[in-house]
């Protein structure tokens, strides 16, 4: 049992806590914020199942992005879809895998190239297109750099200098049962894991919240039925019930958000 293993054990506990609690709290925060008006971007579905289908097309095919810009769409699609394959392949460090996960192992392996090409394309666009460069803050470049570094370090292990996968699995399964097992002493693995931990830490406080956020976006998740069904938020109802015009005229003790 090395010092490094314990350090990484603690690191990943903390990172997991931050990721799960942080993202969970943010989602709860967004989901409970009022949406006072019907603002779906029309034409919009007129039924709830229509909304599910619209959201599916957005999340799986990036439909709006496809309409907007074919290059961005291509790179974004390559990156995200490959990312999912890579992450699916990673389940083998945390659990026994069944036939499906075994089947996709090789796909996940080579998806890493697709992922990196996608990321490189996005980075190139950010550097080369004057409009996109204009809107980029250092953090936008760093985010891409971080993902590229995670990808490269992972690929180093897969294709160049192998690490002991069984030990890695032992370590992470150990963490899940609050039991410390050693990590292989591989510098590349440590770099890979450190970067992943950083990604987990910043997830809830960065633009990565776009992943859960898209599901909560009123322009995409609202049903287009304002004439059929009255939509009203709690604070607006308060105005109505107290028969007031302006919010600061409401009796203060009765004002509540939401």
């Amino acid at each position, binding site marked *: 049992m090395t010092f490094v293993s314990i350090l990484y054990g603690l690191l990943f506990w903390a990172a997991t806590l931050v990721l799960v609690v942080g993202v969970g709290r943010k989602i709860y925060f967004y989901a409970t914020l009022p949406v006072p008006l019907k*603002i779906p*971007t029309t034409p919009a579905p007129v039924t709830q199942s*229509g909304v599910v289908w619209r959201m599916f097309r957005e999340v799986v095919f990036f439909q709006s992005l496809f309409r907007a810009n074919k290059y961005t769409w291509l790179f974004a699609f390559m990156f995200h879809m490959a990312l999912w394959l890579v992450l699916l392949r990673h389940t083998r460090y945390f659990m026994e895998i069944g036939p499906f996960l075994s089947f996709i192992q090789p796909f996940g392996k080579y998806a890493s190239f697709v992922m990196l090409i996608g990321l490189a394309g996005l980075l190139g666009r*950010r550097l080369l297109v004057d*409009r*996109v460069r*204009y809107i980029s803050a250092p*953090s936008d470049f760093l985010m891409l750099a971080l993902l590229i570094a995670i990808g490269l370090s992972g690929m180093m292990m897969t294709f160049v200098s192998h690490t002991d996968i069984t030990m890695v699995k032992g370590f992470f399964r150990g963490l899940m049962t609050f039991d410390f097992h050693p990590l292989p002493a591989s510098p590349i693995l440590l770099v890979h894991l450190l970067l992943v931990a950083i990604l987990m830490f910043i997830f809830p406080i960065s633009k990565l*919240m776009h992943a859960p956020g*898209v599901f909560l976006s009123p322009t995409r998740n609202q049903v287009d039925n304002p004439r059929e069904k009255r939509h009203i938020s709690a604070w607006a109802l308060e105005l109505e019930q107290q028969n007031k015009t302006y919010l600061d005229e409401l009796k203060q003790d009765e004002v509540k958000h939401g």
Partner: protein
Amino acid sequence: MADYEVPKLNGEGVIEIPKIKPDAMAGKGPYIAKPDFQKPLHFPTDFAAEEGGGYTLVPDWKEKALAKMDDLRHRYRSLQLYLDICVKCGACTDKCHYYLGTHDPKNMPVARQDLMRKVYRRYFTFAGKHFPKLVGAVDLTEEVIDDWYNYYHQCSQCRRCSVYCPYGIDTAEVSMAAREILDHIGRGSKYNNEIIGKVFKVGNNLGLPQPALADTLEGLEEDVEAATGIKVRFPLDEEGAEVLLVTPSADFFAEPHVDGLMGYAKVFHEAGISWTLSSYASEGANFGMFIGSYENMRRIALRIREAAIKLKVKRIVFGECGHAWRVAYSFLNTLAGPFDFLDPKYPVPQHILEVTWGLMQEGKLTLDKSKNDDKVLTFHDSCNVARGSRMGDKPGGQFEYPRNVIKAVCNHFVDMPADTIHDATYCCGGGGGLLTDDLMELRIKGAQPRMEALKYVTEQQGVTHMAAICAICKSQFTKVIPYYGFKMEQIVSVHQLVSNALVLTRQVSVQARPDEDDDDEDDGDDDA
């Protein structure tokens, strides 16, 4: 025509994506509303004119601005979420007509959002508080406020950006919030707020009082009678009518709006539907939306409810107006509902095109298409109708209804290039509270994408006229297209085309006055 630098059209129908030209539209923004204009809207008035011609901000403006931002992000999920989740992918950067026309990078939708996002991050996020440079967060300074005022008044809230954003981030939501914040620190826009004041006082944006309105409508009755020989009524404040028509006040005399109003009147007449205008709610357009003020928007909308109750109508129908129809279709039920006192057979509210197309389908209107044979038509989808509302019961009905009606009354119709119609339509360049002369340069440049498309169909397909269903589009185009070498007469109302083609077979209006001498003026002077 005053001198402006007018963009050159390339004739290809679709505008090229320009290189960014920072500060191309730097400036002071539209005229600032003085305290007198802020007062009726319940906004702070503790600011004053300055020596140089400007205005001070209210005391403690910074704290107040931040407090308002905090308040709004807790009342609008859209604002909070959109400030957080933009990934800066850049998909929206070339979608705004104001960017395409002005080349100013702050008119790229995401950059427009960033004006507020940078401040939001600085004061309300972990990263922005501790590592401002890293995430591009900035302090709230007077220069930032000036930038907000300028660039949030270069957004027509047309929502084109939200169509292309992978998360549907709607810059209009951010612009509205920004204007609401600005209104709370002494930076309201004169154009919008003066107009809203007029609605509260008189009932419409033009400040047209009841007697003047009655006069105008009587004049229109005479005009139609002179042209057709039939007494088509334009009723005002007639209790017990079936339909309350709410239409933008520009319809009462601006060209070509008023020709559209004549069209609505003829349709009602011919179908035997009794209807009335209300002097109390004589405005379709609700400028409360432009300034992002739910409270003022609701206050305006409630006038319609009150008028409907007072006049004991069964249905509410809206005339041709883009933003009005968004507020009506999407918000009216929320703001002023429930409308359980109206006839449940009809949606509340209805668009005049839903009425007209419905009657056409039932075969209740006799039409002579050849009356419009001197024209080759194209149709400009108004931004807020296209992306913020619907007609009929199927998604996309807002594109079909106007085209169906035009095709029913005209023999020659062609569409503009696909990237410029339906939900990809470009704003006319004057929407969202920017239809003021002090923003003329912006309006001319913002119209460029639409002008490219119009020029293309003019040259390739012989289009002579462009029909619109929005008071702002009509006013903006008639004013701006001469700069691009078109004539203002080329802009027409859809119901103007209907009016031309409709054959009146009903000799006597269902609302005919019992006796013509009984010219008893309505003296119920509505106090606002």
